């Protein structure tokens, strides 16, 4: 190492911040969103001849314009939240489960299989428990396979779970060749459209209410599970340090398997809600990329299920609003994607500035 003159230090240096007061943290986040909105407005003005105010009005209109749109917003938030809750225990344990997409798909396929093969023979009292058990079980198996290899052979779970997604997609594609209607169309169509067997009931005539309530309940349960249960504590310890966990007598293999079983089963539940509670069909696009978006939701919320209500809502809000912008202005979806991207960038950016500060070279301020 050659010697470096003291005044040759880099112009900007990062240092970790002390914990910021909550009100200040919230202000920084709001400022981040406002800056994002300002920059996207600038972008809209420069690139298109649209009025940014109209574009943002349309964004809100797409989410809250009609009761139907509010329902859609809530339903999509609920599904994304469900998958986010599902991946959270695994991430908290630092198990990189990017296989939620596949776990949701097998859960969806298991639900569809029950509806197709038993929908018109079993009574609802048997059919629904069967659907619930098989979807949870399918997701659980899909999640436990990589967990088993991780626990016993220390395989890389990121690659393993990712590859399990492709396997799940191919399994669905294969099943569709049996279930497709009409033959060769590659589409299953609405399952049991005449009898509605295996469709989750409409509470108060509202199709999505049951999905929303189930996910709200799950949020509360997950919050308690992670924060107050012994399991939750073990997950945190394994996530912080496997050696510490071993030292204090936690069976790490068991915790990994158990947590991934839970994570996979909850993804399976999301598959159930998607097939039985909303679309009543299954295709390779049933999960629709939400298995990946859920990771963002979970991390943005720092694995706090209560905050995930907010982060999942935010993501879906931009998604729905963006689609409305594309429709209202006959714009390519790309414009909406760019706006969403800019605002998300600022939201993630404000998390960065909450944790770190920049020290400029000429700063006279003393550091503590």
């Amino acid at each position, binding site marked *: 190492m050659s010697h470096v003159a003291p005044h040759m230090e880099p112009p900007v240096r990062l240092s970790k911040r002390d914990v910021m007061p909550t009100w200040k943290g919230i202000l920084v986040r709001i400022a981040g969103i406002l800056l994002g909105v300002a920059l996207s407005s600038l972008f809209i003005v420069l690139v298109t001849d649209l009025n940014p105010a109209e574009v943002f009005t349309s964004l809100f209109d797409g989410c809250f314009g009609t009761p139907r749109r509010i329902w*859609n917003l809530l339903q999509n938030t609920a599904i994304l939240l469900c998958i986010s809750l599902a991946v959270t225990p695994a991430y908290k344990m630092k198990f990189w489960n990017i296989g939620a997409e596949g776990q949701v798909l097998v859960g969806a396929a298991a639900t569809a299989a029950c509806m197709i093969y038993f929908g018109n023979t079993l009574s609802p009292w048997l059919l629904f428990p069967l659907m619930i058990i098989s979807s949870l079980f399918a997701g659980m198996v899909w999640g436990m396979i990589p967990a088993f290899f991780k626990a016993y052979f220390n395989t890389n779970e990121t690659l393993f779970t990712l590859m399990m997604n492709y396997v799940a997609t191919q399994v669905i594609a294969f099943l569709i060749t049996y279930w497709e209607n*009409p033959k060769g*169309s*590659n*589409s299953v169509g609405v399952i049991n459209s005449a009898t509605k067997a295996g469709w989750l009931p409409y509470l108060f*005539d509202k199709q999505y209410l049951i999905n*929303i309530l189930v996910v709200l309940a799950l949020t509360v349960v997950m919050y308690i599970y992670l924060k107050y249960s012994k399991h939750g504590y073990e997950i945190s310890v394994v996530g912080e340090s496997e050696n510490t966990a071993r030292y204090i007598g936690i069976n790490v293999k068991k915790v990994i398997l158990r947590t991934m079983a839970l994570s996979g089963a909850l993804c399976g539940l999301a598959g159930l809600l998607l097939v039985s509670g909303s*679309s009543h069909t299954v295709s390779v696009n049933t999960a629709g990329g939400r298995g990946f978006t859920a990771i963002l939701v979970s991390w943005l919320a720092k694995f706090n299920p209560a905050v995930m*209500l907010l982060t999942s809502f935010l993501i879906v809000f931009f998604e729905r609003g963006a689609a409305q912008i594309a429709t209202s202005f006959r714009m390519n*979806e790309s414009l909406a994607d760019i706006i969403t991207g800019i605002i998300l960038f600022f939201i993630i950016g404000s998390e960065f500035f909450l944790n770190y500060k920049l020290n400029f070279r000429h700063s006279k301020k003393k550091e503590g």
Partner: protein
Amino acid sequence: MKKTLKILALVLSLCMVVACFAACNNDADETLTDGNVVATDGDAADVSEDVSADAGEVALDYSDIKVGFIFLHAPTDSTYDKNFMNAVEEVQATLGLTNDQVIVMSDIAESEACYEAAMDLVDQGCNIIFGDSFGHEDYLIQAAQECPDVQFCHATGDSALAENIPNFHNAFASIYEGRYVAGIVAGMKINEMIENGEFTAEEAKMGYVGAFPYAEVISGYTSFYLGARSVCPTVTMEVKYTNSWFDIDAERTQAIALIESGCKLISQHADSEGAPKACEEYGVPNVAYNVNTTDMGPTTALISSKINWAPYMTYMIDCVVKGEAIDTDWCGGFNTGSVELTELNTAVAAEGTQEAIDAAIAAFKAGELHVYDTATFTVNGEALAEDFQADVVPDAAYTPDTDVVLDGYFAESEFRSAPYFSIIIDGITAVVEG
């Protein structure tokens, strides 16, 4: 921090619950109706017959019209949806409709997203809603049953006649006639190559990249093959499927596999540039679908057959304006301007091709030419029986239900606009899975 988060979470959950019930009260009157689904068996209604009830409205003006379009993908990404979007723009300009009157929703999946999109368009005051993908059908039917005052038109679907819902309509075009003409172009090119001594008449084999082993695709390649064989009697054809409507890599791989197994000319029924570009690389002539591919293959692209949806869109709008019923099942052809061929690439095509195209189109317009003339093809060495039945009325078991051989030809698209010719004829080798 934690306390604030908790409070925030509580407030948000409350908001969610309150929003649920607020939404409940606002549209509590919308209940899912069970819709009386009457399946007809046996005789399917004549295509031209109006089964649908009258819209029952006094005549409207074009300014009263609001049309909603539901597209599977963004028109910028998919040539299939682009073809519909071109028609929308043409019709909008011709009829002088504003952007507020023509709402296009793209990237709508074949799931409840389609139903929600349709209902959202109803909320926005649309009188007509048009879906462009086969898998949208079930969801459009669901919306049509709930909104009897709105007309739902669905491209490529097959259930309208059987479902018999007054405000739900199917539409298609006799694209097999267009493919037959494209097949003539291909056959003449092969004849030219034989004459030039590039290969013998016995080696004349074409390759076809299909999407799925599904009636629409089978009907399409059979007509293409019959068109080619009408000018080149020794030609055979091999078909490979990609199992996707849009997969650039798979279409490219299958096209190359066909070329390497000795195919002298390639055509495809799939939506990407995979096959045309592979053909240009290998110097093999190509016949495309829906888009003009001359820029992708200046030395190999011959011609494309395409469906022009503008005549149907104009028709459905005019029906609503006049207060007339829209046909339950509409099938356009050369006569309506629904089937077209793109400009012939004369740099590649054989001498005299344009004249042959014009003659064939004139014969179709006059009703003198039938693609599936039972005298021109055999199945397992035998002519098609006169009492041959096809599965025209959709059912889960694919039961053949309708006599489709009339006056010595298989009457494709006459009992239902969506194709139902799904026989593999002699001369074609196709691997059918599943």
